[in-house]
């Protein structure tokens, strides 16, 4: 019933439905736009800016920007790759990411992005922030050293679990994820089955006693770079 919208991404014609975002349309067309805070099924957040694309020459976040007829989208350009690389490096130096012994290693979206972008070491100096770990909950812990402030847990708990266990507090560089209690995760009604526990892209919210279960070689990103599922789905079509 609804009319179809057509536009181009890097010169390739893409069709979409009104109300879709550029990212949704690109996914359907088998074009991977790198992302971190976006997660299927959650309202887009537009905070990490890894998905920055050019729309008619203006930078926009592909995860929040709606499609429109005839727009010219640039995605895979030198300039945008450089910007995304800068942003990913910023996320690495902003926190304390000890990938080599992190439970999430191999399944971590931040680490996988770094591999896809060929980042061996960030060009920025590490900021080494002092951040808190909360292991009070019997089954789950939150290690803010590894948090990238993507807000997936905030949205999942609020919109999917209907709980509101997590929320952002503070502003600027002091911004952090807080829990709905005086201090401790143990005093919230968070359950291991909550969506909020599942969606963390990095190793910030983890279930206890299940780390390192998958051996190296069989982890999510051991063989194929992040985004290849989207790219392959299209080549099969």
């Amino acid at each position, binding site marked *: 019933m609804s009319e179809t919208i057509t536009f181009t991404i890097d010169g390739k014609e893409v069709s979409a439905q009104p109300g879709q975002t550029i990212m949704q349309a690109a996914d359907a067309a088998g074009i991977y736009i790198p992302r971190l805070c976006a997660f299927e099924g959650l309202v887009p957040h537009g905070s990490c*800016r890894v998905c920055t694309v050019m729309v008619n020459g203006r930078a926009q976040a592909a995860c929040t920007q*709606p499609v429109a007829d005839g727009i010219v989208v640039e995605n895979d350009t030198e300039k945008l790759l*450089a*910007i995304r690389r800068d*942003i990913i490096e*910023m996320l690495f130096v902003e926190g304390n990411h000890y990938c080599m012994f992190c439970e999430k290693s191999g399944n971590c979206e931040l680490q996988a992005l770094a591999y896809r972008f060929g980042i061996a070491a960030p060009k920025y100096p590490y900021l080494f922030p002092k951040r808190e770990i909360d292991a009070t909950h019997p089954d789950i812990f939150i290690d803010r050293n590894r948090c990238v402030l993507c807000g997936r847990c905030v949205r999942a708990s609020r919109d999917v679990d209907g709980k509101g266990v997590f*929320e952002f507090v503070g502003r600027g*560089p*002091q911004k952090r994820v807080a829990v709905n209690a005086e201090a401790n995760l143990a005093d919230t009604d968070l359950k291991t089955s909550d969506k909020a526990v599942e969606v963390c892209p990095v190793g910030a919210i983890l279930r206890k006693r299940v780390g390192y279960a998958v051996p190296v070689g069989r982890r999510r990103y051991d063989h194929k770079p992040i985004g290849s599922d989207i790219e392959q789905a299209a080549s099969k079509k």
Partner: protein
Amino acid sequence: MSKSLEADVKKICKACGNDRTRMMDIVRSVQEQCGCVSGEAMDLIAREVSCHRVEVESVVSFYAFLSTRPKGKVVIRLCDDVIDEMKGSDQVAAALKTELGIDFGETTADGAITLEHTPCIGMCDQAPAAMVNDEVVTYLSGDAARSMVRSLREHMDPKKLVGRFGDGNNGHDLVRSMVHNNIRQSGEVVLAPLAEGAALKNALAMSPAEVIRDVKTARLRGRGGAGFPTGMKWEFTRNAPGTQRYVLCNADEGEPGTFKDRVILTERPDVLIEGMTIAGYAIGSDTGVLYLRAEYAYLRSFLEQALHDRRNKGLLGKDICGKKGFNFDIRIQMGAGAYICGEETSLISSVEGLRGDPKNRPPFPAQKGLHQCPTTVNNVETFCCVSRILEKGPGWFAQMGSKGSPGTKVLSISGDCHRPGVYEVPFGIKLSDVLKLCGAEDAAAVQVGGPSGTMVSPAEFGRTICYDDLATGGSVMVFGPKRNLLKVVRKFLEFFIEESCGYCTPCRVGNVLLLERLNRILDGRGEPSDLPYLERLGQTIKTAARCGLGQTSPNPVLTTLKSFRSAYESLVKEAPDGLQPSFDIGAALGDAKTITGRESVHF
């Protein structure tokens, strides 16, 4: 749980209708009455307005004037803006510290007085200045600060610190402030007196569409900085689907060096309120909100009275000017210390009782703004221009100023000049003429448009103030030949870092990295490659940031790298030994040295 706190919080929440969207008013009142919004208070508020406790915390922790830990009965907030520093705020700071016996960020042992820093409070023309609770004290010196603390210790009443009142309405019974207007040049548009109701009556004699047409014909563009055509914005708002619409006035005036809205609010509140009322008529709205920055709380009762007077005269409220069915009223929403709330979508978040995070666009406020309803947000001065356009006609307005920028602009000039203050000038005026007006012919650099604007070098003083050249929301800061511009840049970056909402990566992290590298250069550890590093980093932040704050925050670095590159070049050097000068091996081995207790051997 203390009984009296419970009773207080309950009462405050009830007075706000236990309405979650009135969170700003609730937490401000709790802060005022109880000295802080404690964990207990947050639990109580959450219970009363039916939200999660962490949502209350997310609001309280966002705004600089709110606090979860108790503060003194009196809070002294010394402005640490770059202009104040130039005018000697260091001596004031030192005097306050010794007299109080505490450092910044601390409270005296008896819980009486807290000492803090705060960014620009809109008093750069009478710096150094500070806030003492809601009271503003200006033209401070070390001596003045000392005697201020002594008298505070006696009576603990900030009101009593005001000796002689400032000029004009600063002496009004409801203001009683020592702030000065410093109006150096009035123009015909904004600062001229208005016959009450004249513009409104003209507007009401026309259809709303005709009013919008007049604003368009006058080619009025927003005075808040972005310069969007006002008539077009109103038309979008009017035509957007919905039954409820809102008019918001942006009186957050947070761009350092800007203080013209302060003067307009003090001397021409009627012109502003009339403009908002005309906007209400034009877009089909019955509700306006004046968002007043917390720093201007001393003007609040005065503005409430101005609204009240107009209600009594039939210029606000029901059936305005006898026009059946045209109802419009305005309430004041206080801010709580956040520059980002001047960004229009953050302002909307704040009015909705949320953290002042900007919103994703689209939808734009004209489509879905306050409470998802079509909303127009305009600057104080923009509304004043509207009044004058409706009073004197769009043709009269359009012939003033320059071709692309009709009308006048009210500038706030501060820094190294003989006559700091407010100047209403025609658009298109040369910067060199502005400098002549304010007595700053020996200026070595001028920051136009505040930290997010442009640092202009003498070679470019022939440029003009207008939307197509040097755009400005009003801030003009003058720096004389003795000033270290890179230190000014550092100050601006510190400001953006403190005021970033932290939502998006480039702004939250990138600005910290810019500052780190600038500090290296200022410390003499910079290398030539640091300059392209700063340029690339700055460009990434500008391009990828989510809102106007991040999109302009690298400007101090980028514009000085362009116009004052030699200032950087003279500080950076290639290390003769080929090692990075930024790498200090002695410092890197410092920890090891402490642990092992012996000197490391290195070359």
